[in-house]
């Protein structure tokens, strides 16, 4: 439980109470957990296995799902469920049989309203998850721009 990035800093019993808000879902190999554009009602904690996060891309006139990121045990997926407009911006599918804990937004909001300290800690953890993603993709984007500039100037 200490390895779950969204629950870092919470006392074990407090983390248990948050986890009890969710339900376990098993996604078979190749199965989709959510699809780009779907309404995002739950945030997911990966308990075991591995999820592929993909975006569609045109490759030789065919739409292909291109890997953007992978998430494994202890990591959080689907934070679009906590951020308006509550729509998934990626597709998540299981690279191998994967078990996640689905935490519904409504249940989390109610719990955090009653336990603001827990809500604050989870919000900080969520900020870290989102911030890390932002910094990572900022760096990846700049590397691609650099390559484009080098090709143009070659």
């Amino acid at each position: 439980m200490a390895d779950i990035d969204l629950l870092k800093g919470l006392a074990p019993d407090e983390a248990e109470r948050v986890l009890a808000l969710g339900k376990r879902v098993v996604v078979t190999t190749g199965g989709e957990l959510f699809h780009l554009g779907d309404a995002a009602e739950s945030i997911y904690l990966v308990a075991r296995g591995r999820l592929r996060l993909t975006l569609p891309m045109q490759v030789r006139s065919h739409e292909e799902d291109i890997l953007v990121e992978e998430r494994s045990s202890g990591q959080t997926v689907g934070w679009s469920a906590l951020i308006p407009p509550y729509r998934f911006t990626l597709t998540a599918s299981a690279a191998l049989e994967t078990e996640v804990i689905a935490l519904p937004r409504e249940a989390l909001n109610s719990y955090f309203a009653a336990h603001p300290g827990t809500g604050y800690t989870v919000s900080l953890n969520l900020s870290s998850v989102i911030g890390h993603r932002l910094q990572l993709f900022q760096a990846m984007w700049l590397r691609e721009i650099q390559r484009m500039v080098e090709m143009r100037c070659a």
Partner: protein
Amino acid sequence: MEMLLMGACLSVFGLAVCCLAFGAATRDSVNPVAASPGVEPGVEKEIVKAAASPARFFVDPPMLPMAARTRVPIEALLLQIENHVRLEHAAAECFLESPNASLLHSRTISTLVN
């Protein structure tokens, strides 16, 4: 007078040769697909894509990545893209651990861009 006429003729001839050479250097090469009416439109598109840039005098051909230069199967191309994303992800992670310009612009071994 004869010398003057000869000089004028040589000048006009020289100018004509220069014009022909300039025209040849700057003209687009004939599209090979347009000359073959039996080719279907879908195939035509593929051939046009596969064709390299037309050779021109004074213009170096653009440096294309290996994946673009060779016609790899789509499965192989998708694997190359996936491998590229993983490598870029790892490079970005390295940069975030110790942010500096050289790590940000470290070279990649990805076959998609090399």
